[in-house]
């Protein structure tokens, strides 16, 4: 029945593509969290009135974030070819997509982290200072835990954008569902494949959104 409706869909190929999409998304989400939180903290802490107030550092961090956010993802991949080649040793396959995915989404997430940190009650930071807390204590025991729901919803939004990016990366041969839909579906005129890939990507997005919302809700005790 399924093979009649979708004559060109081979399940094992689809599974491989799903696996590649998950691989790219999950690893790049992990990389984005690390890089994004670091950048976001830097933006927040060096801003005026911040714990490490520093005009120059803040200027450079903001410039870095803005430049990388301004470059369209498809162009960023091309620009990063030499860097990717140096880092991964190839520019093809799911692994080669990772540097571009992380560098493309970390600045976006960094801004979301910054917004989340700004929402933390300044009074609570003041209270921690009054207790004699060190800066790293304030970061790890006040700022990050108190902004956690915002950080989680931020990474959910970013992860969903990343799923879209993996499909774009597919066009230059990164693998995954986007790749599969483009080369096997579109170029061979096998539109049932395109349809199946689209449905699967939508399902994956829904799953990420659901998990993200669930965790953010659980964490929020306000």
């Amino acid at each position: 029945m399924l093979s009649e409706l979708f004559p060109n869909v081979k399940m094992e190929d689809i599974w491989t593509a799903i696996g590649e999409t998950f691989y790219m998304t999950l690893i790049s989400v992990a990389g984005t969290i690390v890089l994004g939180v670091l950048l976001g903290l830097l933006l927040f802490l060096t801003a005026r009135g911040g714990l490490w107030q520093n005009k120059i550092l803040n200027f450079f961090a903001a410039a870095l974030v803005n430049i990388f956010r301004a470059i369209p993802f498809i162009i960023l991949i091309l620009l990063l070819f030499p860097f990717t080649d140096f880092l991964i040793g190839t520019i093809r396959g799911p692994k080669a997509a990772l540097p571009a995915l992380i560098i493309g989404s970390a600045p976006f997430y960094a801004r979301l982290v910054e917004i989340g940190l700004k929402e933390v009650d300044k009074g609570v930071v003041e209270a921690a200072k009054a207790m004699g807390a060190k800066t790293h204590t304030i970061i790890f025991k006040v700022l990050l835990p108190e902004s956690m729901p915002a950080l989680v919803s931020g990474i959910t939004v970013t992860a969903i954008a990343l799923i879209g990016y993996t499909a774009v990366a597919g066009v230059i041969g990164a693998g995954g569902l986007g790749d599969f839909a483009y080369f096997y579906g579109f170029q061979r005129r096998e539109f049932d494949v395109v349809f199946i890939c689209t449905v699967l990507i939508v399902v994956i997005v829904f799953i990420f959104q659901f998990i993200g919302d669930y965790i953010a809700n659980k964490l929020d005790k306000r």
Partner: protein
Amino acid sequence: MISIKGLKKVYPAKHQDVLAVDNLNLEVSKGEIFGVIGYSGAGKSTFIRLLNRLEEPTEGQIYIDGKEISAMGKQQLRKSRQEIGMIFQHFNLLWSRTVRDNIAFPLEIAGIPKGKRRARVEELIDLVGLKGREDAYPSQLSGGQKQRVGIARALANNPKVLLCDEATSALDPDTTDAILRLLVDINEKLGLTIILITHEMHVIRKICHRVAVMESGRVAEQGDVLDVFLHPKQPVTKRFVEQVMGDRDQEESLHLLENYQSGQVVRLHFVGETTNQALISQVSKRFDVAVNILQGKVTQTQKGAYGTLFVHMDGSAEEIARAIAFIKTTSVEVEVDPNAE
């Protein structure tokens, strides 16, 4: 215990620098509850933040327990801050932590091992009366309960000084009273020195031993709470005293009561009075006079009652004179014929 010399804080601004605290000198002794009252913008909020250097002083010295806070390096200041508790108007609790974990936070900062931490937290929960709410999150607590968590947290590291930044201003009157009682209780039990800032005179009246009145960055007046209530010198102080005692001008309305043909109108001044509260009934029992209370207000302070009563005594002239002589032997001040002037 706390000694403040020539304290000054200037906020630089484009056109004109803002002088928030100006040449402030204060001495607070150990175990004292010292109140600072002022309208918003008087500089009291800046003042209390200067004490633990949440704001850096521009000039002047702050000594707490013999150590000069104003001269400390960062490391040393952090250590000292652990011995200065602070509570806030908006409580400033971490919403992501339970009551227990909020109270444990300063202990974590001080590097107390986990086992000891847990025991100390239980003690504190008992002390502030939050038994049974240990696992609640701040969002599940009432304002008064939140401030209790704030107090427990501030006391966790056995501080010598407690700074209260408008600690009751966000609470309703009943809860305010309960929190003030808790503060007095802690002050007596632990011998803690408390500095509190407020804009509400009844907070000063209820719990403070001494008070400083601040106006535009300076101390306008300071002294024992009773003294300040009795003889407010500055206009700003008079306004605050009126907050609790009512308007003095109102007393002048007694002129209208001149339709008393016989007897005597007397003004009784209760100052730090605790033993003679049955004075009126004593007078009417012992002497053959009818005592009629016309108007008055008596209020309780930490050091006893303070207030005035206008009474009308009727009877024979000698009997009235004897009654007045009797009152004069107590600590109540008598002013005969207050309208005669």
